[in-house]
């Protein structure tokens, strides 16, 4: 058996034989995402349902019956009250303590004013609306009432001027590719989150595996065995990669299962299947190459650090940079087309994930990313090996 394989097996066994580590490093990320996003989704859906099922309490003066008909014809329920006796202070109080959602007052001769629009003395009637934008039911009531008022206005104008009031009619056709649209939703959220969780997965075990061994003094026991330092480095990097990949897959599944709930897209659950086997295979390749790079960084920093705590602190800047790269790319919605973008680690991950999720992937970009990350990882392992050979780094207290 190769020496790196012996190290790999032991490092891997270290994690899989520890229930707490399995839970925190592999199960928890996916579970946390699923629970967090599901709760957020349920809260958002519940809030929307609460508002739309609320019976709108309208206090009015002189509301025309035909306008009231528009309201009652809508899907919302209303509770109408006469508000003619209410003072403005009372209206404010009632809106503030949610006894009233909206107040609407029409002039007492509103219907007559509408018919006398040809009269030279005609003045445009004023309809007064009072609501409280800081209160959710009142704010929503304003949308409903004003929407109905617009429709009512249009019907009055149509009665006055007939077809002449209509300047033009528009014909709108939406040629949206449903899969691509859904893909863009995924592409706007998933890449950044995936990179974040890949990093946090590697960060949760990497420092303990290397800096922890230095801190506890167990690395010296390993260094007096007749195996090359590079074999130790490779064994540790590969084991961390596999475990981090499990962690990333857990996060990925958590995201896929919770996104439909988060985004309140009833049919998105089915739409998750918009991706084929080749798409998932490419995602897996991108994840693997990214994990290799991230684990390489985490391992290198952990080899340099004297303690787990120091390693955690030194890794943080890299973590923040990756988040910044992720955030800066998430609003773009489209993958970069320039070849150089796929040579930059993390940035190439974000762009390739966007490209895959929006069905716009180029094989050349994927190959460039694989080659670039392989070179980076080889260099990182080389430097890590050099560090393993440095007395100063390995044994300085």
């Amino acid at each position, binding site marked *: *058996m190769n*020496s790196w394989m*012996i*190290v790999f097996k*032991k490092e891997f*066994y*270290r994690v899989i*034989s*520890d229930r707490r580590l399995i839970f925190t490093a592999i199960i928890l990320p996916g579970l946390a995402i699923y629970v967090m996003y599901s709760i957020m989704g349920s809260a958002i859906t519940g809030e929307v349902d609460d508002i739309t099922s609320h019976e709108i309490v309208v206090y009015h003066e002189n509301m025309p019956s035909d306008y009231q008909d528009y309201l009652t014809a809508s899907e919302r329920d209303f509770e109408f009250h006469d508000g003619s006796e209410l003072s403005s202070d009372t209206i404010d109080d009632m809106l503030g303590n949610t006894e009233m959602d909206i107040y609407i007052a029409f002039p007492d001769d509103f219907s007559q004013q509408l018919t006398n629009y040809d009269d030279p003395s005609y003045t445009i009637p004023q309809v007064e609306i009072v609501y409280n934008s800081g209160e959710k039911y009142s704010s929503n009531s304003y949308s409903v009432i004003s929407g109905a008022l617009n429709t009512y206005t249009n019907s009055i104008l149509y009665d006055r001027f007939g077809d002449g009031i209509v300047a033009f009619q528009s014909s709108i056709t939406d040629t949206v590719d449903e899969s691509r649209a859904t893909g863009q939703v995924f592409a706007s959220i998933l890449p950044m989150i995936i990179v974040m969780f890949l990093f946090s997965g590697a960060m949760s075990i990497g420092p303990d595996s290397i800096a922890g*061994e230095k801190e*506890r*003094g*167990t690395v*010296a*026991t*390993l*260094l*007096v*065995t*007749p*195996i*090359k330092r590079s074999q130790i480095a490779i064994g540790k990097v590969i084991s961390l990669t596999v475990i981090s990949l499990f962690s990333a897959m857990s996060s990925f599944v958590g995201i896929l299962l919770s996104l439909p709930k988060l985004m309140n897209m009833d049919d998105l659950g089915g739409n998750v299947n918009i991706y084929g086997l080749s798409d998932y295979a490419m995602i897996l390749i991108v994840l693997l190459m990214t994990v290799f790079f991230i684990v390489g960084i985490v391992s290198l920093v952990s080899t340099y650090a004297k303690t787990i705590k120091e390693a955690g602190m030194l890794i943080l800047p890299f973590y923040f940079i990756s988040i910044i790269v992720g955030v800066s790319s998430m609003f773009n919605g489209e993958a970069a087309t320039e070849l150089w973008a796929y040579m930059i680690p993390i940035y190439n991950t974000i762009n390739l994930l966007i490209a895959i999720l929006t069905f716009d992937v180029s094989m050349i970009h994927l190959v460039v990313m694989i080659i670039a990350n392989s070179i980076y990882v080889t260099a990182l392992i080389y430097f890590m090996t050099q560090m393993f050979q440095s*007395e*100063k780094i390995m*044994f*300085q*207290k």
Partner: protein
Amino acid sequence: MEQILEVKDVKKTFHLSRKQRKIEKTDQKKKVAVNALSFTAYPGEIYGLLGPNGAGKTTTLRMIATLIKPDEGDIFVGGTSVLKTPIEVRKNIGFLTSELKLEDHFTPNYLFDYFSRLHGVDEKDIPIRKENLFNQFGITDFQEVKVADLSTGMKQKASLAISLVHDPDFIIFDEPTNGLDVLTAKSVTDYLIQLRDEGKTVIISTHILSVVEKICDRVGIIIDGKMKVSDSYDALVDKGYEDLETLFFELLEEGDDHE
């Protein structure tokens, strides 16, 4: 090739960090831990490195074990240079020091197998070797207990067994009885004697004079990184020294006078 261990004119200097300078109360940025140190250990003998704390004993043993490199000079383990072919040297030495720890999460049984494989021990020989060593040090009863749950003595026993997984010809133990109870310490010294009788080259470092007197065939006294005396205990007595303790304190006083 004769299994001789030769330390030839080795020198090791450490850079002192600001923190270390503060602890050692010195302005010097470098500290010479070992200077022009030479000695030879032969098969079938136990060579004891004796010296006060900070004399350079552990540094010398770490250089032999290839954990650190000499700045000058070289060390030959069975004719193999620690500078030129450290991996070959590691194949042939069993090294134990208090700085070598076992991982808490694993059992002695697992770690024995793990280090056996890293040392390239044949799979079929591992159980036999394990049974011998575990019986020798009384590890069998706790072989499936995680290191985290073992007492200091149990951990030391497990470390001893694991340092010998590959049946090395050179055994280098740094303070092997440190922190052990009387019974465990005796089992360790008895085993070292057994290894010597098997023809192995054994080097131990200690600051306990009685251990040297009891088990070492030859002794080297290191003070301030320099070898002051290297001879057999009997030869030292023949030279007129009353006992090792007297010699040791004489050399210590000499060192203080020179400062």
